[in-house]
């Protein structure tokens, strides 16, 4: 019995909405980055959870190909994600995609980032660190670029999800962490000048410059 056209169209709609879901996940990851802070950001926390889901949504189709190798047929609609025969479903998909791109990402995210800048000032006024709010604002403003970066890491194979996660790790370790090392060094200097413990930040700064080596050290211990 052939799959009903409506069902095929629903599958197409969901697959076509996956990139929008990835974008929304990135926005939510930005909020979690503020909530969890930066130095207390935990693997398995909200930020990593939303980043993981962004990667999953982005690599949904290659991920589905695993079911075929398990022996479970996943008959994607012909041309999917693409042609949606049912008119109102096609309109629904286009409207949701446009809403996410034009309303959420283009207009709402910059405004929220601006609120985070204000929040940073208020954080400083209340004796907290302004850096988490500033970094969250930067992450939100860079949502589109981060999305493009994730897309460029998508290999389109069965292993696309882990390939993207691998590449993200390399990007984090090779690009972001050396910059974070400078910020840790600045923190160490400020702590020294104000007579607070600073050696921990010196060790952290060196560790941030040698994350790959520490990973290799861990591997060699196993």
């Amino acid at each position, binding site marked *: 019995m052939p799959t009903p056209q409506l069902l095929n169209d629903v599958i197409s709609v969901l697959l076509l909405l996956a990139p929008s879901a990835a974008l929304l996940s990135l926005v939510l990851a930005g909020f979690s980055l503020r909530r969890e802070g930066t130095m207390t950001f935990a693997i398995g926390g909200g930020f990593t959870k939303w980043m993981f889901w962004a990667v999953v949504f982005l690599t949904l189709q290659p991920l589905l190909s695993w079911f075929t190798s398990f022996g479970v047929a996943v008959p994607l609609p012909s041309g999917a994600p693409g042609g949606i025969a049912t008119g109102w479903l096609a309109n629904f998909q286009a409207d949701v995609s446009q809403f996410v791109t034009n309303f959420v*990402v*283009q207009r709402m*995210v*910059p405004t929220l980032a601006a609120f985070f800048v204000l929040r940073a000032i208020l954080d400083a006024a209340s004796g907290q660190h302004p850096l988490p709010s*500033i*970094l969250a604002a*930067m*992450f939100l*403003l*860079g*949502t*589109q*670029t*981060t999305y*493009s*970066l994730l897309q460029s890491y998508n290999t389109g194979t069965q292993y696309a999800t882990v390939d993207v996660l691998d590449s993200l790790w390399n990007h984090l370790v090779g*690009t*972001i962490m*050396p*910059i*974070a*090392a*400078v*910020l840790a*060094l*600045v923190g160490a*200097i*400020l702590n*020294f*000048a*104000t*007579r607070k413990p600073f050696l921990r930040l*010196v*060790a952290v*700064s*060196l*560790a941030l*410059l*040698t994350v*790959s*080596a*520490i990973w*290799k*050290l861990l*591997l*060699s211990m196993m």
Partner: protein
Amino acid sequence: MNLGNMSFDQGILHLANWVGNVIMPTLAAAFIIIAILQFSKGQEFAHSMYGALACLMVSGLTRAFETFASQAAWNNPDLYWLSLVTLINWVANVILPVYAASQVAAMALRLGVFSPVHPTSGWLRHFVTAALCLMVSGLLRLAEFFVAQGTAGVT
């Protein structure tokens, strides 16, 4: 607003540059002011003074740390240990001899200006500090020798 040109990497990089090259040199002046005020009240002012110097050297210290962290290939498991060892060597063999010279100068000031030669005045502390600064490696070898002598345990 062109969000397509804004990336998190560039944002955090420019933040680090701004903090290191604009804010920290400005804070250096603030720490020098604090050091002067602390000095006037007879309080300990070295942290503020050296902190002000460090604020002016963020780029240089970053390059130094990059050098410490480049003592082996990026995938060498010993790289973190090597970077720590290089940092400690740098402090012991470069910074401490300079500090020793400053202690000798402080001793000379104590002897010649601040107080007459007297066993209880502070000149001896500056002299011993200068000597110790120049003997870090020797002290470490001495401690290692003592520990090595005791490996057999108490009999």
